[in-house]
Every structure is written in structure tokens, then in C-alpha cells.
């Protein structure tokens, strides 16, 4: 990321984060805004060299939690909704967690594609199998 940068505040992003896919040589910058900025569900895709290659939307009010699966797909949450995307933004799956989770506190994916969701109000980890 030496020769390009994104001014997160200028594009309307007061929170967010990034995740790096070393295998695909991609860096994903995730938009998250508690201020309702339009960029709040935007994903910027860079090469690991810093070249901006794509911008896509997750179709959610905001990106709350996100994680990169070992197969290179991205899991993004907002509220009780989990969406799975390819790195280019194609939607692969979507589902809503139920009372067994009680609010998503984080999520992770193991090498077998199993999704672990931390439940806020239930103080529990719920596992989903593909």
C-alpha cells in the first residue's frame, strides 16, 4: 500500500477495518459507519501492492463484523444477517441467525468452511456447517 491510499474520512468512513488475503494478494478495506455515511457498506479491493481494483457494496445498512474465510470468500454481518461474498462482491449466500445467537458479537471460519458465530446476549458460540 505504498503508492495509493484511501482517505477514509474523506470518503465518509468513520469506522471500519481491513483484511488481507495473502493467497489472492488482495486487501479488503471494509466500510463501517455509525454516522450513516453512504460508504458504510462499501468494500474497497486493493492489490497487496496498493492498486485499487474494485469497489462493491454489501447491500447492508453497514458492515459490522467481517472475516476472510480460508477459501478467499468474505463473510459480512449486519444485525442478525450474515452474507457470504466472493472477493469481487458476488453474493454467494445469506442467512439470518436466530435466537440461538441473540446478536452477533463476531464470526470466524475454519478450514472446513464451518462458521463460528459469537452470540452477544446468549454468551455462546454457535457453529454453522455449509
Amino acid at each position, binding site marked *: 500500500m505504498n503508492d495509493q491510499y484511501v482517505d477514509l474520512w474523506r470518503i465518509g468512513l468513520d469506522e471500519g477495518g481491513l483484511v488481507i488475503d495473502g493467497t489472492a494478494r488482495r486487501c479488503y478495506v471494509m466500510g463501517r459507519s455509525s454516522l450513516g455515511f453512504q460508504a458504510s457498506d462499501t468494500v474497497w479491493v486493493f492489490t497487496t501492492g496498493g492498486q485499487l481494483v474494485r469497489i462493491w457494496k454489501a447491500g447492508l445498512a453497514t458492515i459490522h463484523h467481517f472475516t476472510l474465510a480460508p477459501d478467499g470468500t468474505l463473510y459480512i454481518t449486519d444485525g442478525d444477517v450474515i452474507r457470504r461474498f466472493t472477493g469481487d462482491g458476488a*453474493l454467494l*449466500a*445469506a442467512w439470518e441467525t436466530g435466537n440461538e445467537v441473540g446478536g452477533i458479537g463476531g464470526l470466524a471460519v475454519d478450514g*472446513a468452511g464451518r462458521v463460528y458465530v459469537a452470540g452477544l446476549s446468549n454468551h*455462546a458460540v454457535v457453529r454453522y456447517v*455449509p
Partner: protein
Amino acid sequence: MNRRQTFSYVLLLLTSFVTAGCSAKKPPTRPVPTGPASLVVVSVPSGVPVTLDGTATGNSTPNTFSVAAGSHRVGLRLLGYRDTTVTLMVSAATVETLSVALGPGPGTPRSLAVWQQLPDIPSSIAAGTSGPVYVTVGTIGGNPGALLVFSLAGTQLGQSSLGYGVSNNLTVTAAVT
């Protein structure tokens, strides 16, 4: 009044009587409803794109559509849920409500319910490619935080105190075996 005139008079009376009797027996006529009907489509979850008779409406649930009387096919399709099509008859100048609860689609991951019960509010979670699974708890609830480590089989491998004010971001930087 001659005989011929008398006959005509009686015939006229009889005709009037029969006509009056017939009209009294006619059932009351009601106006036949005409015009378009309103079709209200609601679903759980909401926000599902609606097709009407195979054509995309460009609108999502909940929504009200103006339709002609007759049979209509309502389609609801949302990724992660089962495609649902309902055919229903709609009468003219009425309001029909269609409520649909979409079932999970074939590609939706299956929940195994609670995999681990935690001692406090989880704040972050991360997993190695082949395990283990790391969970931080307590760091957003005002309690001292802790890092819990589980194998993919669900066995707790360890627990470490994190104290107060630790970050709620957790990252596994390499596969752990």
C-alpha cells in the same frame, strides 16, 4: 260496453295483474363489483423482491399491488431462502392479503445450535484453518477480559486472563495446528 269491449278490458286487467305479479317476484339486483383489486403481499423476512405472473415488479415486500380480478401468481425469491410461488384468486374491487414465511433455502448453512457456552459476553472470535478457535470474553461488559481457546472438536484447550481494557479485535495470523 259491448261484449268485445268487455273482453278487451278484462284482458288488459289480467295482463296488468300478471305483469305486476311478475315484477314483484324479481330478485333485487345488486351492482356487480368491477375495477381492479388490491393485493397486499407481506413476508417474513421482509424486503423480498416480488414477481407478479412471472414479471418482476421492481418492488419488495411489504407492498400493495393493483391487479385485475382473476388468478395471479406471486413469486418471492431471496438468496438464502426457499423460492416460493403462490397462486391465488382475486375478486374485483377487493383487498386480498398474502402473508408468506419463507423457509431456509438449500444453500443455507445448518446450525448445530450452541457449540460452546461462554462465561461472559463474547467480544471477538477467530479461527485457525485447522483450529483452534479463539474467543475473547468480558472485555465489553466491564469485567476483566479472558481469552478462551477451543479445539475444533469443542474441547477447551486453555484460558488466559486479559485484564481490563484489552482490544476486542482478535486475529489469527497463521494456520495453527
